[in-house]
C-alpha cells in the first residue's frame, strides 16, 4: 500500500500525500491561524467552541483545501476541489474590474443597519442545514450597502463573511520554510527571531550539503537543527553541541516529518565531551545520560535528566495537537513516535573521528552565548577550509568576534551581513510593498577557517 510505503521509505522525505501519524501545518483562513497537528483518527482542530475531526485529512495531498461544513453531529471538514474555470472567473471578477472603477465610499454611512439578517435568522438557517457558502450568499443578498461597494470592497466583505461562516483550512507541508515562517509570525522569541531568509543564508553560508558533518549550536528551539537535517536528507550528521550538562531543547525537529534515518543522524554532544581527551573522565561524564537514554519511556519521565531532553512531550498532548499556544504541561509520552528519537548522544567513535578530521561546517545560533568565546572553543573542531556562520540579533558581539578572528589570523572571507526582506502586493494598478514588514532579520557573521600552521 502506498501509505505504508511512505512510512517505510527512508530515503524520501519529500512526501506529497499525508498519512496517519504525519505532522502537518494547518493554515486556517489564509494565515489567520496556523496550527501544527499530527494526523490521527482521534486528533481534532478546534474551531471556536467546536471541534472538527482531522480524520478527513488523512491520505489527502498536501496543498488540499478544506472548508468547515455544518453536519448533523457538528462541524466537519470537507475537501474543496476548485475547477480551473472557476478560478478563471474569480480572477476576472476580482482583478480586472478594479481598473475602471467609478464607485467610491462617499455614500457609506457606518450605522450598523445595513444588514437585515439577524443572528437568529442565521442560526435558523444553520439548523435547516444551510452550508456556510449559502449563509454568506444570504448575508450578501440582505446587505443594503453591498451593491454600492466597489468590487474591491465587495470582495473584502465576501472574504470576511466567508472566514466567519465558512472557514477554510489549507493543508500544508511542514518544511523548514513553513515552520520557520509560522514561528516567526506567532512566537518569534522561541526561534530567537530567526527570519526565514536569515535561516536560508545560514544554510547556504554553512555549505550544508549531503554527507557533510555539520556542527550546530542550536539555542533556537531546534529550527536550525531541523533545517540542517532537512538539507542533509538522511546523509551526513547534524551534531548539536551544548554547553553545560543539559542539551538544548530541539522540539521543533518533531514538526518535520523526518524519516528514522534522518532522526538517527541528529545527535547531541556536550562541549566537554568534545573537548576532553580520551580518558576516564569522559565516560564518567556521560554515564548518567546514557543510562536514561536506554531506559523505557515510563521510567524516563521520572528521570530529571531526561525530562528536559527531547522527548515526545509537546507532541502528545491529549489529541495530538501541536498548537503553538504555550506548550501544554508535560504529559506522558503515550503515543511514541514511530521514528527513532532525534538527538541521541553522539557515539564515542563519532567524537573520535570528528576530533581527527574535523566537522565540515559550523553554524551557531545562540542568542545568550558570547560569540567570540564560543567560536574560540568550537573553531578547532572544524576541518581546514570549512565555512562557519554565526547568527546573532546584536551586531556588537559579532563585530568583536570578527575582529578577534582577524587578529588571530584564524579565518578569511570574514563578513558581517544583514538580510533585508520585503514582500509586495501585486495587483493590476495596485502594486506596492506590503504596508507592514519585518524590519530586522538579525546579523550574520560568516567566514572560512584557514590552516594556521603555515610552512615557509
Amino acid at each position: 500500500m502506498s501509505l505504508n510505503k511512505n512510512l517505510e521509505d527512508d530515503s524520501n522525505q519529500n512526501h506529497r500525500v499525508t498519512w496517519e501519524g504525519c505532522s502537518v501545518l494547518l493554515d486556517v483562513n489564509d494565515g489567520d491561524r496556523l496550527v501544527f497537528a499530527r494526523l490521527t483518527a482521534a486528533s481534532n482542530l478546534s474551531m471556536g467552541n467546536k471541534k472538527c475531526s482531522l480524520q478527513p485529512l488523512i491520505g489527502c495531498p498536501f496543498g488540499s483545501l478544506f472548508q468547515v461544513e455544518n453536519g448533523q453531529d457538528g462541524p466537519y471538514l470537507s475537501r474543496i476541489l476548485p475547477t480551473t474555470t472557476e478560478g478563471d472567473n474569480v480572477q476576472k471578477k476580482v482583478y480586472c474590474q478594479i481598473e475602471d472603477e467609478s464607485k467610491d465610499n462617499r455614500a457609506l454611512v457606518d450605522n450598523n443597519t445595513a444588514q437585515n439578517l439577524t443572528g437568529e435568522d442565521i442560526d435558523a438557517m444553520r439548523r435547516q442545514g444551510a452550508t456556510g457558502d449559502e449563509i454568506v450568499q444570504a448575508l450578501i443578498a440582505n446587505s443594503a450597502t453591498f451593491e454600492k461597494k466597489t468590487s474591491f470592497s465587495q470582495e473584502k466583505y465576501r472574504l470576511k463573511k466567508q472566514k466567519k461562516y465558512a472557514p477554510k483550512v489549507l493543508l500544508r507541508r511542514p518544511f523548514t520554510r513553513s515552520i520557520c515562517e509560522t514561528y516567526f509570525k506567532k512566537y518569534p522569541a522561541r526561534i530567537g527571531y530567526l527570519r526565514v531568509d536569515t535561516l536560508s543564508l545560514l544554510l547556504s553560508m554553512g555549505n550544508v550539503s549531503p554527507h557533510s558533518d555539520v556542527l550546530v549550536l542550536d539555542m533556537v528551539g531546534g529550527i536550525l537543527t531541523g533545517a540542517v537535517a532537512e538539507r542533509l536528507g538522511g546523509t551526513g550528521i547534524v551534531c548539536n553541541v551544548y554547553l553545560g550538562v543539559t542539551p538544548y531543547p530541539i522540539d521543533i525537529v518533531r514538526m518535520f516529518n523526518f524519516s528514522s534515518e534522518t532522526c538517527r543522524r541528529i545527535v547531541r554532544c556536550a562541549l566537554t565531551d568534545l573537548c576532553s581527551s580520551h580518558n576516564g573522565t569522559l565516560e564518567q561524564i556521560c554515564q548518567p545520560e546514557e543510562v536514561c537514554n536506554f531506559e523505557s519511556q515510563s521510567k524516563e519521565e521520572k528521570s530529571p535528566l531526561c525530562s528536559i531532553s527531547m522527548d515526545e512531550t509537546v507532541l502528545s498532548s491529549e489529541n495530538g495537537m501541536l498548537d503553538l499556544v504555550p506548550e501544554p504541561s508535560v504529559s506522558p509520552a503515550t503515543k511514541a513516535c514511530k521514528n527513532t528519537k532525534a538527538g541521541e548522544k553522539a557515539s564515542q567513535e563519532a567524537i573520535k573521528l570528528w576530533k581527527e578530521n574535523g566537522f565540515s561546517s559550523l553554524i551557531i545560533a545562540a542568542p545568550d552565548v558570547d560569540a567570540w568565546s564560543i567560536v574560540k572553543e568550537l573553531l578547532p573542531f572544524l576541518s581546514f577550509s570549512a565555512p562557519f556562520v554565526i547568527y546573532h540579533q546584536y551586531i556588537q558581539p559579532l563585530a568583536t568576534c570578527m575582529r578577534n578572528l582577524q587578529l588571530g589570523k584564524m579565518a578569511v572571507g570574514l563578513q558581517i551581513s544583514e538580510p533585508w526582506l520585503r514582500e509586495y502586493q501585486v495587483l493590476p494598478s495596485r502594486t506596492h510593498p506590503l504596508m507592514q514588514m519585518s524590519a530586522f532579520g538579525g546579523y550574520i557573521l560568516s567566514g572560512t577557517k584557514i590552516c594556521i600552521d603555515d610552512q615557509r
Partner: protein
Amino acid sequence: MLLVDPAKKISFNRYISDGDLVIVYERHDNMKAVKVCKDSVLQNRFGVFKHSDWIGRPFGSKVFSNKGGFVYLLAPTPELWTLVLSHRTQILYLADISFVIMYLEIVPGCLVLESGTGSGSLTTSLARAVAPTGHVYTFDFHEQRAVSAREDFERTGLKSLVTVGVRDIQGEGFPDDFCGKADSVFLDLPQPWLAVPSVGKMLKQDGILCSFSPCIEQVQRCCETLRANFTDIRTFEVLLRTYEVREGKMESCQADESGSTGSLPCKRRQRSSEGSNAKEVSGSPTIMARPSAEARGHTGYLTFARLRCLS
C-alpha cells in the same frame, strides 16, 4: 565541490591533489578558481606560485610565491563559486539564491527544472540542494552558453547532478518528458508568463514555481497569468547589507587635569591614577561596525506560486 560519493567524505579528505579545483583567495573581493596541475604555475601581483608546492597541503593553507607573497587555497563551495565564475550573463547572488532554495522547498532527491541556465550561479546551489539523489535539468536557448555551462559543471564536479539542455523555454515550454515530475521550477526569463502554462504541466501538485524578474512590469504580468492555475502567489525582494568592522581609539571627552581650567562641558573626571601629563588619547580601543557605503540596491523580484491541487 560536492560529495556525491560518501566514501570520499570531504571532511576526511582535505588535502589538495593534482587535478583539484581550488579557490585562490587573495582578498575577500579578489578570488580566482584554479585547476591544480603539477607542472603549472599561477602568476599574479604577488609573484609566481608553483602548483607543485600546493599538492599535499591541506585546503585552507597559506601558500607563498617566489617573492614571498601569499594567497590562501580554499576548497570550492557554491558560495565561493558564485564569486569566481565567469559572467556570461547577469547572475544571481547569495541572498536571492538562498531564499529561492528555501522557498522552493528543495530537499535532497528533488527534481528541479531551471531556465535559463545563464552562468550557472544558481544551478550550482540547486545541485547542492538536490544532491545526492535528485537532479537539476537546466535549459538555455543559447548554444554556446549551454556548452560553457556544461564545461563549468564538469569542472566543479557537478556533472552527475545537472543536465544542461538547449531549448527556448518561452517558445516551446519544457520537454514533455518532465510532465508532472518536477518538484520545483525556477524561471529567469524576460517574458516568464509565456512559460507559465508549461510550468503548470511540469509541476507535481502543490509543486512550487519561482520567477525572477528585475522589472515590476514583468512581475505584474507574470502574476496575472499565474492566477489561473496557481495559488499562494507571493512576491519578494531580498537584499543583503554588509558591514565594515574597524577597531579604533576614540578620543574621549575627559577633562585634562593638567591643562584644563574646568571650563570644558564634560563633567566626567579622569579616573586614571597615572600621571596627568599623559598626552595620548585615553581609553581602550573600541570595535565599531557600520554598513558598507555602497551596496547592491536591487537584483530582482522573486515571485513564488504553488500549483493548485486539483485531485
